């Protein structure tokens, strides 16, 4: 155990404080401005909730929010099921080309979204899949799948194959073993993977942007359009809501899955 001199560790604490201010200050100011009367963010600050009221009349934003939620929920369900199945297969069976399959999970994460998004636009347009919410869902599931597989596989790595073998030797079928032994053991990993998938989809902008059409769009795409037209406190209000929403969601995830901590 090394002890840094008190002034050094004090300096360290002060520094972390500065980094946290850098990370949170703009968000706090944005939230504050969503409660400010002036539509041009003028000070002094005067409290109002009119922008939140205005929000409830903004049909375009509400429709886009519902689309975002619907796509995020569907992405979560599909990516969690497909991803968990794939993780189980990669955990249980050994076969030629397994490493290649595992390596193939990284392109969707590592390739800039600008490139994935434009590539999907070209392919979906050329094959007649077209643009719209279904195309956005296709894209989001693909982006979320690697996260689910990585998180669930990390959980499986702590699971002992002996438990499955014990179940088999006691006469359980493959399905019974999976349902009664394996899945309950890795449930926290599945839940965390599902919440990651939700967050990936709900916050996704770039890919949705290229696949959206005027009537079929998601919240981040609508917000981007509004920002480019001109800033409004309504955008602050809706942004504040989704920041609070996603941060609370990830706070819950952290209860299920320690980020990198013990994996």
């Amino acid at each position, binding site marked *: 155990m*090394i002890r840094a001199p008190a002034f050094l560790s004090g300096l360290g604490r002060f520094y972390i404080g500065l980094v946290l201010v850098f990370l*949170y200050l703009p968000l706090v100011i944005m939230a504050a401005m969503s409660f400010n009367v002036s539509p041009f963010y003028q000070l002094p600050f005067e409290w109002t909730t009119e922008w939140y009221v205005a929000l409830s009349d903004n049909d375009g934003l509400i429709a886009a929010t519902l689309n975002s939620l619907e796509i995020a929920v569907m992405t979560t369900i599909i990516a969690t099921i497909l*991803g968990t199945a*794939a993780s189980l297969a990669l955990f249980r069976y050994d076969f030629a080309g397994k490493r290649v399959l595992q390596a193939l999970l990284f*392109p*969707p994460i590592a390739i*800039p979204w600008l*490139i994935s998004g434009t590539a999907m636009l070209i392919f979906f347009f050329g094959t007649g899949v077209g643009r719209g919410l279904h195309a956005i869902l296709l894209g989001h599931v*693909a982006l979320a799948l690697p996260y689910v597989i990585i998180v669930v596989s990390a959980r499986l790595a702590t699971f002992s194959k002996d438990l499955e073998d014990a179940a088999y030797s006691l006469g359980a079928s493959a399905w019974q073993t999976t349902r009664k032994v394996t899945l309950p053991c890795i449930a926290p990993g599945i839940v965390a993977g599902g919440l990651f998938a939700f967050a990936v989809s709900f916050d996704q902008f770039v890919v949705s942007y290229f696949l959206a059409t005027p009537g079929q769009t998601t919240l*981040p795409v609508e917000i981007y359009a509004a920002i480019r037209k001109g800033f409004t406190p309504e955008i602050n209000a809706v942004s504040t809501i989704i920041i609070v929403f996603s941060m609370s969601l990830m706070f819950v995830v952290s209860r299920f899955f320690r980020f990198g901590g013990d994996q």
Partner: protein
Amino acid sequence: MTGKRRDSGLVKAMPLLLPAYAWLTLAIFLPLSAMVYFSLLTSMSPSGQSATLTLGNYATFFSDPLYATLLVRSLELGLIVTLVCVLIGFPAAYVLAKIFKGRAREAIFLLVILPFWSNSLVRVFSWSMVLREGGILDTALNAILPFKVTFDLMYSYPAVIIGLVHSYLPYMVLTCYLSLQAIDDALIEAARSLGASRFTTLRRVIAPLALPGVLAGSALIFIPVVGSFMEPRILGGHGGTLYGTVIEDQFTAVYNWPLGAALSFILLAVVLVILLVSAPVLRKAA
């Protein structure tokens, strides 16, 4: 014998693997292949009818210096943002891994990582309220300083850098933290007791061991920053034209998809080459 078992493994694994990988093929791998094909078409119309194959789009990249200039500008931006993230993120990760303990460490770590999982578009947008004239920094500076200053970073290159560093800093703290945390304190103690100064210990013991984390974080930041277009659009204004925004234009404004596909593919190739060149260094570090 082993070969046979491995084959039967694949047969059993197939039904579980197929849905996930079929989806990835449909939504990632086929589109990327289609993009390569599209980049070789002459037609300006996205339907590709009566288009012929050509290398013209790639020729455009090499004949018009604008594209190369913008690509260099984007690569430069990627380097600057990555470097700033290392300079801010590494010390933060060090303090977190070696000074904070127990619950305080866990809580602060979570606080650093949380913004990363909130909407990046919104976080970039939030800077516009800080950086503009009449914004918070402008007002605060004028309140403190006895003379009038005009502080307006909005729609400038520094604004783009600030927004991107804010977006990607958590990556660097995360990866550096993971590798710093794995360093045994006894090693640091040994170096110190053998007479190494704090700086020498940092340079000769801690830095080499933490290098994989720094490099992993750098790759995770550099790649998306080079392809960024939303951040420069929101914070950069007219000065925010970058390689990514030109690609975006080809798809959403100019509708020259084949050229956009070629530009995207060149970006992907450049990023891959950079990764391949740095792969030996990465492997050596790991």
